[in-house]
């Protein structure tokens, strides 16, 4: 029974979650694109010079604002530090997961660690913990809705279970050690739609931890298109509106 459950979680549910996530992301973006635009500017003016001339590279400015968050840096530097650390670590984490594919060769095949040797996951976990704690403090607490806690809690669980996989690999000398090659077998089978049982590649008691990590990641993907994480796709266009 347990084997069947983990198989559903680690194979069919992954496909459903990814397809669902991609479909709704596209649908959400299309909804915005299909809506009427506003025929006038919504910009604000960071300086007076731009009044009589076209704004200098507003798209570059929008990217700058979206990726460096200068207003946050200026007014809440600690929050900004965690935001930057989180976003950089998140990008590295995506890269690290892609690196599991046998075709990508950043880390050696027999490596027991992902890119960053577990540090990336820890940075994400600590940042998420900070974001969550921050939500319990006034005045942010007053504006927080249950969905804000849910997405943070879900992400935190995904990150912690990922950390456990990472730490587990270094805690033991035998039985639980899995290399990049083992994970690559699982991911490769997913990419190639072989529907093979992940047990073939991932052995030992560690399997349920990986299953839990995949289950949480699936839930995250299912919820992502309806969450505020969609700002990943809209941060630049939004900042472009402000830049003119």
């Amino acid at each position: 029974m347990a084997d069947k459950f983990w198989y559903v979680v680690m194979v069919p549910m992954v496909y459903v979650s990814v397809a669902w996530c991609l479909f709704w992301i596209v649908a959400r973006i299309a909804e915005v694109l299909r809506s009427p635009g506003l025929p006038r500017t919504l910009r604000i003016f960071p300086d007076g010079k731009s009044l009589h001339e076209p704004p200098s590279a507003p798209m570059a400015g929008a990217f700058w604002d979206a990726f460096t968050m200068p207003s946050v840096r200026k007014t809440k530097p600690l929050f900004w530090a965690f935001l930057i650390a989180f976003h950089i670590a998140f990008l590295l984490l995506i890269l690290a997961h892609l690196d599991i594919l046998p075709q990508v060769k950043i880390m050696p095949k027999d490596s027991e660690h992902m890119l960053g040797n577990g540090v990336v996951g820890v940075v994400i976990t600590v940042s998420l913990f900070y974001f969550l704690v921050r939500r319990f403090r006034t005045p942010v607490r007053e504006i927080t809705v249950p969905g804000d806690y849910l997405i943070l809690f879900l992400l935190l669980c995904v990150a912690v279970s990922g950390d456990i996989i990472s730490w587990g690999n270094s805690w033991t000398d035998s039985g639980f050690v899995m290399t990049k090659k083992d994970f690559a077998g699982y991911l490769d089978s997913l990419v190639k739609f072989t529907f093979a049982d992940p047990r073939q590649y991932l052995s030992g008691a560690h399997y349920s931890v990986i299953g839990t990590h995949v289950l949480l990641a699936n839930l995250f993907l299912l919820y992502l298109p309806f969450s505020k994480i969609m700002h990943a796709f809209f941060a630049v266009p939004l900042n472009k509106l402000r830049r003119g």
Partner: protein
Amino acid sequence: MEAAEKQELLKLLGEKLNQSILMYLDNCSRCGMCIDACHAYASTGDIRLSAVGRAQNIRRLFENYHKITGKVAPWLNEAVEIDERWMERVYDTAFTCTGCRRCMVYCPFGIDTQQIQAIAKAMVLGADMDPKPLTMRAKNSISKGQNFQQTKEKFIKELDKIRAEFCEKWPGMEPEKAIPIDVQGANVLFVSMAEKPSILPTASILNAAGEHWSLSYFEAVNFGAFLGSAEMAQQIYERIVNEAESLGAKNLVICECGTAYRIMKHVIGKRSFNVMTFLELMDKYVKEGRIKLDKSVVEGKVTYHDPCQIARNGGVYEEPRNVLKALTDNYVDMTPNRLENWCCGGGGGLVIAAEPEWRMMTSRVKADQIRATGAEVLTTGCEMCFAQLKDVNDDFELDLEVKLVSELVSEALIWE
């Protein structure tokens, strides 16, 4: 609330959902960066008055009627039904927002609270709960445009009185030339607040500079914009646009009125004339040597309040400062200033629609900011800000002289 009324109001919400609004409503991460940016929150500590607090009213409604999560799990983002209670709550937050857009500076995504509040205002208007002083004035403006020929005679009669006063104060000019109207091909069509205090000093400056100008029949202020009604706002600004186009005016110069300037500069689209605020024109005159100013007239330390719609939302920062520095060697900026300046608390028509007690309650940070300059003269470039700042000056006992920049310039003019 009747079902039909509900449907009508929800239709208004649906009509407002354009690209920017969809992104604004969907992407707020409630990080709280905008909270401290709002003068109303900073002065009162009431979270409902913060930008995100105000916007959440609309977001919750949007969640209920336009999002899948609102239907599947309404508790997730606290979706709400539209009812009388919601309407009352939204009235309190919509018509207490000055639309200064200071929150937009601090939001990592640049979410425009003024745009979101325009939805709230449209729905309040739709429910006939709008602030009547604003609506009445907006309707009067529209009616003036529609019955232009009938009101013209009365306008000229009133103008003759102002002309007489002008000629008494600055003798040597024929009344009709002192404040001219209907001048074809004028270099400047000046749009005033249609009140004596606004026309007299500006007319003196325009004449001292030897400008070829004409006074508009219409008042600059746009009450439709304060109401958040794009239709009314358009009807009001089209009167001025038509006048400028029929006269073939080269420059449409807006008196010191922030909203009027922003609408004419950034909303109406490209037209046959150039739009500028009177602050820019004065700066031009000073730079070109067309007006000369006596620096001994203005006494004491002078500071300047950047009107939100002219500065942050209009891009005019340095021009008024240049003029003031030509007037005095004792100029000091407020902190913060320019892009990050605190709103006076009277914008968005609040100076007309809101109770003075309310306006003063939300202006504490402004009063503190002004007090910290140690200035004796407080100037600004917007008549709405001017009215509010005079009240702030009295209420917080700042003991300052509050003046429009044009008033100071007019007083310091050296006539040659």
